[in-house]
C-alpha cells in the first residue's frame, strides 16, 4: 500500500503521458480521449462532494451536467448564428467566449442545484434518491420536447469556444484548458473537504444528530455542498459540449447520472482523485472492451458488481493507504 499522495502524483503523470503520446505519434484521438477523461473527472469530482463526502446519493446529477452543457451550446449557437437570445426588454446576444460561458454555466447549474436542493433535502434516504432522479427526468423531457434547441436531435456548435491566446480547435490547447480546470477543481475540493465546512459536512454524513446538537444546521451545510457540487458538474457539462461541439438530451438521461456515479465509485468515494481514476477506467473499458465487443457494457456491469460487492473502496482503496476521515 502506497501513500495516497504518491498515488495521486502517479495518476497525473500517467494522465499527461496520454496526450503527449498522442502528440508524438500524431494520433489526435488519444488527445481527445484524455480530454474526455479529464472532463468526466470534473463531473465526478462535483458529484463526489455530495456522494462521497456528504454521504447523500444524488441520482440526478445529469441535470447539472446537461444544464451546463446546454448553457454552453445555447450561448455559442446564438453567437455563431448571429441571432440574439432575447430581444426584449433588452438585447442579450450569445457569446463564444469561454471566460464568459464557463462561469455562466456554473452559475446556472448552481442555481438549479439551489432550487432542487431546497426541495429535495427535506427528504432523505430513498426518497431523496428518487426525487433527485425525478428532477433530472423533468429537465430531460423538457429538453427533448423543446424544439428551439434541437429537441431530441440535439444542438450542434461548429466551432470551439474562444479562449484568449489559444487556438481551442487545437487538441492539446483544449486539453490543457480542461486539465488546468481539473487541477483547480481538485484543489478547491481538497480545501473544502479539509476546512471547517468540510468537517461539518462529513460529520453530518456520519451523525447528523450530533451535528445539530453542537449548533450546526445539517441541511444548510448539505445544501451548500449540493450547490457547489452542481456548479462543478455544470462546468464539466459546458466543457463536454465544447469538446464534442454538440449537446443533446442524452447527457440529461439517468444513464448519465448512473455513469457519473460509476466513475466516483470505481475510483473510490471520498478520495480526492477517485473521480479521475474512475473516469479513466471507464474510458479505458469503453475503448478497449468496446473495440472487442459491442456488448462491452455487459463487462462494465460485471466489474461494477464485483467492485460494489468486494472492493468497496474502489481502485484507490485497493492501492493507497487509508486516510482516517470521512
Amino acid at each position, binding site marked *: 500500500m502506497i501513500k495516497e499522495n504518491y498515488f495521486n502524483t502517479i495518476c497525473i503523470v500517467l494522465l499527461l503521458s496520454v496526450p503527449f503520446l498522442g502528440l508524438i505519434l500524431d494520433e489526435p484521438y488519444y488527445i481527445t480521449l484524455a480530454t474526455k477523461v479529464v472532463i468526466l473527472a470534473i463531473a465526478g469530482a462535483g458529484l463526489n462532494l455530495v456522494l462521497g463526502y456528504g454521504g447523500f446519493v444524488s441520482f440526478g446529477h445529469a441535470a447539472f451536467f446537461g444544464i451546463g452543457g446546454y448553457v454552453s451550446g445555447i450561448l455559442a449557437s446564438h453567437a455563431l448564428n448571429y441571432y440574439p437570445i432575447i430581444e426584449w426588454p433588452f438585447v442579450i446576444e450569445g457569446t463564444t467566449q469561454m471566460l464568459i460561458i464557463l462561469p455562466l454555466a456554473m452559475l446556472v447549474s448552481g442555481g438549479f442545484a439551489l432550487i432542487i436542493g431546497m426541495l429535495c433535502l427535506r427528504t432523505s434516504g430513498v426518497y431523496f434518491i428518487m426525487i433527485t432522479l425525478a428532477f433530472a427526468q423533468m429537465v430531460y423531457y423538457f429538453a427533448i420536447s423543446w424544439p428551439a434547441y434541437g429537441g431530441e436531435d440535439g444542438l450542434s456548435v461548429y466551432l470551439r469556444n474562444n479562449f484568449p491566446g489559444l487556438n481551442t480547435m487545437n487538441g492539446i490547447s483544449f486539453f490543457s484548458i480542461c486539465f488546468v480546470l481539473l487541477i483547480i477543481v481538485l484543489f478547491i475540493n481538497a*480545501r*473544502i473537504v*479539509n*476546512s*471547517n*465546512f*468540510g*468537517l*461539518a459536512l*462529513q*460529520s453530518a454524513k*456520519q*451523525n447528523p*444528530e*450530533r*451535528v*445539530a*446538537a*453542537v*449548533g*450546526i*444546521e*445539517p441541511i444548510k*451545510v448539505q445544501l*451548500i455542498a449540493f450547490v457547489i457540487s452542481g456548479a462543478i458538474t455544470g462546468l464539466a457539462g459546458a466543457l463536454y459540449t465544447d469538446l464534442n461541439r454538440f449537446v443533446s438530451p442524452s447527457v440529461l438521461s439517468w444513464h448519465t447520472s448512473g455513469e457519473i456515479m460509476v466513475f466516483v465509485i470505481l475510483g473510490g468515494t471520498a478520495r480526492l482523485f477517485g473521480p479521475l481514476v474512475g473516469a479513466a477506467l471507464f474510458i479505458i473499458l469503453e475503448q478497449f472492451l468496446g473495440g472487442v465487443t459491442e456488448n462491452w457494457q455487459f463487462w462494465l456491469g460485471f466489474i461494477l458488481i464485483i467492485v460494489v460487492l468486494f472492493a468497496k473502496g474502489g481502485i484507490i482503496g485497493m492501492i493507497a493507504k487509508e486516510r*482516517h*476521515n*470521512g
Partner: protein
Amino acid sequence: MVSPILSIQKVSKKFGAVIASEDVSIDLYQGEIHGLIGPNGAGKSTLIKQISGELKQDSGKIVLGEVEISNHPVFARAKMGLARSFQVSSIIPNFTVLENVILAIQGNLGLTFKFWKPVSKNQELIEAAHGYLDQVDLKMRMSVVASELSHGERRKLEISMALALEPKVFLLDEPMAGLGAAGSKVMTKQLAKLKSRAPILLIEHDMDAIFALADRISVLVYGRVIASGTVDEIRNNADVRQAYLGSDDL
C-alpha cells in the same frame, strides 16, 4: 426573585393514548444541579427530547433565559446555549477526538461556513480544543479516532463537547450509563466541577450519584412530576418511596 436559567412550563405530550408527559414544570437556577429521576418508562427521555427540540411538545412552554425556545429546532437551541449529552454516546466515529471537539467549538462560534483554511492548521481552534479536552482528562487521547475509544472515554468526550459549547445550561442524559464504580466516581467529580460553569439538568438512574450531586430533585412517574424538592425531602417523601417500592435504591 432570581429567574430561572431554564424554565419548563406545563409541558405535555401524548402519543395516541399514551401519556408521555403531563403538565411537567421544572425550573433550573444558576449554580445548581437539578436531578430528574423516575422509574423506567416514566417519560424521562421523551421529556429530554422535548427540551432539546428533537420532539415537539403538544402544549406548554420552554424558556431559556429570556427567550422562549418552544418552537426552535435542535441546532438553534444548541446555538442559544443548550448543551445536551446523549445517553448512548453520540460522536463522530471516523474523526479523531480532537476533531470532534473542534466541531463543537466551530458550532458554538458559528465558524462552519469557512471553506478555505484547513482545520488541521487552525491553531486557535486546536488550542481551544486542547483546553476542553484537558478539563475531562482526555487530552492524551486526542489523536485517537473516536470509534476506537472505550465506553468511558466516549462519555468523557460527550462532556468535553458539551463544555466546548460554552453553554448556559447542561442537559445531561444518564452520563453514568455503562460506567463501572471507578468510572462513576470520576464522572461524579467531573459533574461537580461542571456546576460552576452552568446549571445542570441531570437525568440519572444512579442514585448514589444523584444524591451526591443534586441540589434539588424532581421525580417523574408516568409522565408526571410527583414530587420536587431537596435531596432530603425527596428521600423522605412517601409517594416517591412507593414509586420505587421494591427497589433498594433509596
